[in-house]
């Protein structure tokens, strides 16, 4: 029973982390290796707003998310637009950016004490005899809301539809008058905001540490690749696969293998079926 409950919680957390990465990759084919850095920086922003500017929690969350959106858009508009289309340069540029942000935070931001965000609501409930604290319930709620919102957004909103059009066929989308650079800016801004939402939902469960940036990146890549790049349903199913696998490994083998599972999932998926288990796009282009 606790495997089921914690499996679901873990899976939803993974889905939350990965959805921003999937969004950016699916739409502009840009593997955003700075995703983990954006996640950590949100935590740091919220913490600074609360403790340095003495704002209240809700206001600082809203403010931090807005800043993250702008930051993501700015990263695309000023940095990534220059290397667009060159796959190697894209990886190197985003990776260098992520590294710069994380190591800067390690140097100037987080030292000495531990940094934590307060939980939204204290307390816990019993589900089937297992105590689950309310923050974890909130994580699931946020996860469901975000996924539902993204689904509605990409199916019933003009901008969302344009984003999907870009993801399916960039040239055709451009012929229909969709500005591909602008859409990529929007995608990157939303991707950063989603990273921020994941951070705000998940960080109250533990400390804010720089290493989380690297782990979040690996986990997002894992979910994204196992699910198939650009496939939303696939990403969510993959989050559940990896999430449960992780919990089962931790329960029956050893907690050290937590990350090994995710990394092995990436390697094995790429070797067996590089387009992912649920992805249908570009199946022929990835392999010789």
């Amino acid at each position, binding site marked *: 029973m606790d495997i089921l409950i914690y499996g679901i919680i873990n899976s939803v957390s993974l889905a939350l982390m990965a959805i921003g990465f999937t969004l950016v990759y699916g739409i502009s084919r840009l*593997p955003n290796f700075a995703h983990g850095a954006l996640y950590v920086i949100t935590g740091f922003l919220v913490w600074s707003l609360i403790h340095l500017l003495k704002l209240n929690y809700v206001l600082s969350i809203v403010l931090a998310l807005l800043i993250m959106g702008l930051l993501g858009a700015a990263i695309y508009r000023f940095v990534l637009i220059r290397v667009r289309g060159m796959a190697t340069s894209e990886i190197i540029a985003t990776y260098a950016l992520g590294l710069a942000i994380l190591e800067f935070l390690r140097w100037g931001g987080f030292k000495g004490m531990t940094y934590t965000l307060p939980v939204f609501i204290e307390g816990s409930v019993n589900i089937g005899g297992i105590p689950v604290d309310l923050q974890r319930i909130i994580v699931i709620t946020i996860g469901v809301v975000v996924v539902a919102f993204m689904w509605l957004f990409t199916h019933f909103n003009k901008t969302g539809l344009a984003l999907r059009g870009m993801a399916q066929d960039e040239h055709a989308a451009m012929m229909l008058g969709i500005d591909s650079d602008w859409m990529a800016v929007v995608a990157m801004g939303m991707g950063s905001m989603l990273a921020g939402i994941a951070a705000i939902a998940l960080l109250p469960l533990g400390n804010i540490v720089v290493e989380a940036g690297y782990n979040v990146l690996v986990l997002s890549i894992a979910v994204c690749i196992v699910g198939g790049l650009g496939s939303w349903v696939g990403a969510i199913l993959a989050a559940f696969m990896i999430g449960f696998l992780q919990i089962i490994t931790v329960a029956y083998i050893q907690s*050290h293998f937590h990350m090994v599972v995710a990394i092995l999932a990436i390697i094995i998926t790429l070797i067996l079926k590089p387009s992912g288990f649920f992805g249908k796009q570009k199946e022929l282009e990835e392999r010789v």
Partner: protein
Amino acid sequence: MDKNPATAERRKERLDRGIKVRTEGIYAISSWQEMCYLVLPRLILILGILLLPFMMPSLYWNRVISIVGIYGLLALGFDFLAHYVGLVSLGGSLFIGVGGYLAAVLNKSFGLSPLFTIPIATLGGAIICTLLILPALPLRGVYFAIVTLMYPLVLFRIIEALNILGGTDGILGVASFPNPWVEQYLILVIVIIALFGLRRLVNEDIGLVFRGVKDNDQAVKASGLSITYYKAIAVFITSALGCFGGAFFVHIYMVAGISLFALDYSVIPIAATVIGGGGTLVGPLLGCFILVPISELLRAFGTLRIVFYSVILLAFIMFRSEGVMVYAQRKYHQFERWVKV
């Protein structure tokens, strides 16, 4: 179109020097002067590298030169694989780690001296790495990059989790080199051999096939050649360079720990390649000679130095993606002048 009115009427014309015959690498030499023109840059490079150990102020800096050599080998391998075979490998630390642990185990458990452990670790490590990467060879671009990035991470975690090979403490007390000069010249000579060997290799027939694999693998396939076979050879060469670096590293620091799988070994060679100029083979080496000492000088700033070279890397890839060496070669081999349009 140039919008600046002052330069709008002119354009820069670039002309090859007369010594160059039709194509890259073939020259018509008719005087000592022209011979010097070709030989001097190479001579300066070789002599410069060989004399470097004498010019260092202290033993600490001699050690830095050895480290530069290790990164140089990795960068050469990365450049070769990325620009001549078309495989972007982010797994420099995989090679270092496998070579390093192999040498340490051979030395500690079997009591072999560095004379034997280094060659065995180089070849054995290269075989292991090639076998590990073999299933990923059909992948392209980003996918291959991600797989190679994940290998060192997974080995790191497995060693940590299973507590094998000394666990988080590592294998201590590995034998060192008999004296610092052996250490120093071993790595520098290997670097020079690797550099000129690779330069020769990419211009041989097999080098042509490598470039074919990069540019149009279907054509290579259609010629009845196995792409996977050639990719495997290239990966073997690269991993041999990296594993040698790893084995050498273990013997100079006398310890093999999980830090051998650290991201540094994957990131710095790439940065050096971008800064030095990809596709030139010399460029990445020079990039290492620039980056690694700077990184040592900045050691006092802690992790800020990683920020520093990430930012340099970002700036180069955005504004000067050709790199220092390509720029320098252009200036050296060509006249430039302004002509009226």
